[in-house]
């Protein structure tokens, strides 16, 4: 009644609790958004699915890094076309021209160029023959490479290729283009390069750059302008292509960059919000329920029951937390059918309950002497009733505060376990993401956008609950209240 309203007023009066509450509301809103917009099997369907991320640049920083670096960084662009710009057909044979345009405006080189061809339908046994050309802003058209595709012998026509797996040509990594580049460069710019020089500079530098003389040395600078990638296709008149995509790899991508698999880190981290909250709440609720119940029974019953429960909690309490959790998860994860995440949660709960048991027991010991307990006995109440209808409500605020306080510990424990590689690789939790970043050498390579954001988010989640717990302290311990 007014007791509860007073509770709220005390809680809300301090700055820490206001801050904690604001953070919690923020986290909850984000989690709700994620739950509505992400598919439930996001982990398996999207995050661990390389096909989703295939086009993305790998380990590039976020787009807003532009402001800090001082120059515009090359944005990631994907250009596609479905229909040819020109088709010439003579007597059942067609000659199609597909063209894609790309503007390089920034002072940098694209990180790679990918060509993808989707769904090629071939009507002739001869198949189709492709020539890929590259046009620079000054109009020079370089022939990069050519290849052809034909239906396997005995296959029924029309034959559909590039359907389950699209044709991917890494234009900027195909060794075969090096000679064409070499010829172009040496003749156009009067240079004396060999293939090693080209390799050293990188294909993208040559493709998208031009040499300038600086202090007697030749430096390749980005060549701004409009580029074209042209795909010449020879084939049967009826042949068709569903889609041609050219990916010009950018130097940046997304809100928080990408990881080594090209995954959008921002997207993965967002998914981590509800996961973190769920892990935090689930473990703390279960741990608190077990710990408090055992504490109440132990403290109230006394005697043998008390001894047994106390010994067990002493033992479990004195296990070294992290090594024990690691051991437990490791053992359970030998069974591949057991969901990893559940193993982690179970381990956190299994090691977390004794702390509360011991605390609650000592509180119950003093409450047990209270007169209203004696009064309840005098009117004939039995032990169970007294324990849960009389003693528990007196402890409820404390237990609730302990629950809140346990949450950041649980979140950190899960992060630690994932970081050590015991987590579920399919579900992108923040700990999981950090683990992969370390494993991929992110720290050594300076890929800060992969390491810092998940770390900061873990910290944020922990701080949220710590603030709330701090704000609850005066409610639970009336002596801390300001009179």
């Amino acid at each position, binding site marked *: *009644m*007014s*007791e509860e309203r007073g509770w709220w007023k005390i809680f809300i009066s301090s700055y820490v609790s206001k801050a904690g509450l604001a953070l919690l509301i923020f986290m909850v809103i984000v989690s709700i958004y994620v739950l509505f917009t992400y598919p439930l099997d996001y982990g398996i369907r999207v995050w661990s699915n390389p096909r989703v991320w295939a086009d993305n640049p790998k380990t590039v920083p976020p787009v807003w890094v532009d402001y800090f670096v001082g120059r515009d960084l090359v944005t990631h662009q994907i250009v596609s076309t479905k229909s040819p710009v020109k088709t010439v057909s003579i007597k059942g044979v067609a000659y199609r021209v597909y063209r894609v345009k790309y503007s390089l405006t920034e002072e940098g080189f694209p990180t790679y160029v990918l060509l993808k061809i989707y769904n090629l339908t071939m009507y002739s046994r001869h198949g189709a023959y492709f020539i890929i050309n590259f046009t620079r802003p000054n109009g020079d058209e370089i022939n990069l490479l050519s290849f052809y595709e034909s239906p396997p012998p005995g296959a029924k026509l029309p034959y559909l290729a590039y359907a389950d797996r699209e044709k991917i040509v890494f234009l900027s990594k195909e060794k075969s283009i090096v000679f064409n580049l070499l010829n172009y460069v040496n003749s156009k710019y009067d240079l004396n390069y060999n293939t090693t020089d080209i390799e050293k500079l990188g294909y993208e530098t040559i493709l998208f750059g031009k040499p300038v003389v600086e202090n007697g040395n030749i430096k390749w600078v980005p060549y701004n302008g409009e580029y074209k990638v042209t795909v010449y296709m020879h084939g049967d008149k009826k042949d068709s292509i569903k889609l041609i995509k050219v990916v010009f790899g950018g130097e940046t991508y997304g809100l928080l960059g990408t990881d080594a698999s090209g995954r959008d880190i921002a997207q993965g981290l967002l998914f981590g919000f509800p996961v973190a909250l769920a892990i935090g709440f689930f473990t703390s609720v279960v741990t608190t329920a077990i710990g408090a119940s055992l504490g109440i029974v132990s403290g109230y019953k006394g005697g043998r029951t008390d001894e047994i429960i106390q010994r067990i909690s002493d033992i479990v309490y004195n296990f070294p937390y992290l090594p024990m959790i690691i051991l437990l998860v490791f053992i359970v994860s030998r069974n591949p059918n057991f969901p990893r995440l559940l193993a982690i949660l179970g381990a956190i709960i299994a090691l977390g309950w004794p702390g509360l048991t011991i605390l609650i027991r000592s509180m119950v010991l003093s409450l047990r002497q*209270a*007169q*209203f307990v*004696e*009064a*309840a*006995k*005098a*009117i*004939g*109440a*039995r032990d169970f*009733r007294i324990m849960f*209808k*009389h003693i528990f*409500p*007196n402890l*409820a605020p404390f237990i609730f505060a302990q629950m809140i306080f346990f949450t950041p510990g649980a979140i950190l424990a899960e992060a630690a376990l994932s970081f050590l590689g015991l987590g579920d690789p399919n579900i992108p939790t923040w700990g999981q993401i950090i683990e992969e970043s370390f494993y991929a050498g992110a720290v050594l390579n300076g890929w800060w956008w992969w390491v810092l954001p998940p770390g900061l988010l873990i910290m944020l989640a922990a701080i949220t609950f710590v603030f709330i717990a701090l704000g609850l302290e005066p409610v639970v311990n009336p002596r801390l209240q300001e009179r």
Partner: protein
Amino acid sequence: MSKVIMKLEDIRTYYYLRKGLFKTLVVKAVDGVSLEFRAGETTAIVGESGCGKSTLGRTSLKLIEPTSGKIIFEGKDITHYKGDLKWFRKKAQIIFQDPFQALNPYHSIYRILSEPLEIFGERKREVIEEKIVNALEEVKMHPPEEFLTKYPHMLSGGQRQRICIARALLLGPIYLVADEPVSMIDASSRAEILTLFRNIQKSRDLAIMYITHDIATTKYFSDWIAIMYAGKIIEYGPTREVLRNPLHPYTKALIEAVPDPDPENRFKIRPVIPGEPPNPINPPPGCRFHVRCPKRFDPCDKKEPPLKEVKKDHYVACFLFT
């Protein structure tokens, strides 16, 4: 003479404290008390702290198990009763000293009062409500409905104690132990609560054990008085008689030590009993009071004086009277 409801025969309640691995101390809280409680009568148990009166009250209700002796309730020996005592709890209740502690701060008044009914199987809400409202009216809390949703901390000390009384009365007891029921209530409200006790006793014909250290209140709320010292009863008789003609030196000194409101008091040095109340772990040999007694003589430190009837219905345990 009205019916004997509760009879205590040579009750001894000892506590055993373990001090260290091999030593056990015996606290002789109640050391041989025999009393009778009749319907419609109040017996006051008066003594200072540590004399065992609270333990006696709780022992009579089997909230503490006696070490030896007999508890006879309505003619039945229940000392070693081997079954569920729920039927006994219905008929024998207790009011505690601290009304705030005796009520669970997290339960509303309705919940507190409905609990005994629920424990004894009453399920129908209308019946429960009716009984609760009647109980509140009986303890003069008007209007009863207003109090159902309140919590203990919203009530004054006197009101809380009335709730405790209402709770005890709900089950229809015939024997009531009132353990210092007004000592934590303001002086001006005490008379009100004691009058309430008296009226309830009359209307329900209750046998009451009234435990107190405030001897002045016994005049208004007890028919019999027993003075307890170091676990034993040293004087017993009708209240008016004992208060007017105290026989035991301790009783005399106790009465002298209590001031009545009198502006002349400040000029007088009150005669006091020297020393401290005895330690129940190691009571002195012989008469427990002899160490502090101004009238002690030869047999007092060797043998314990028995409780003997010296005048009609007036009993004393003192060698001065044998």
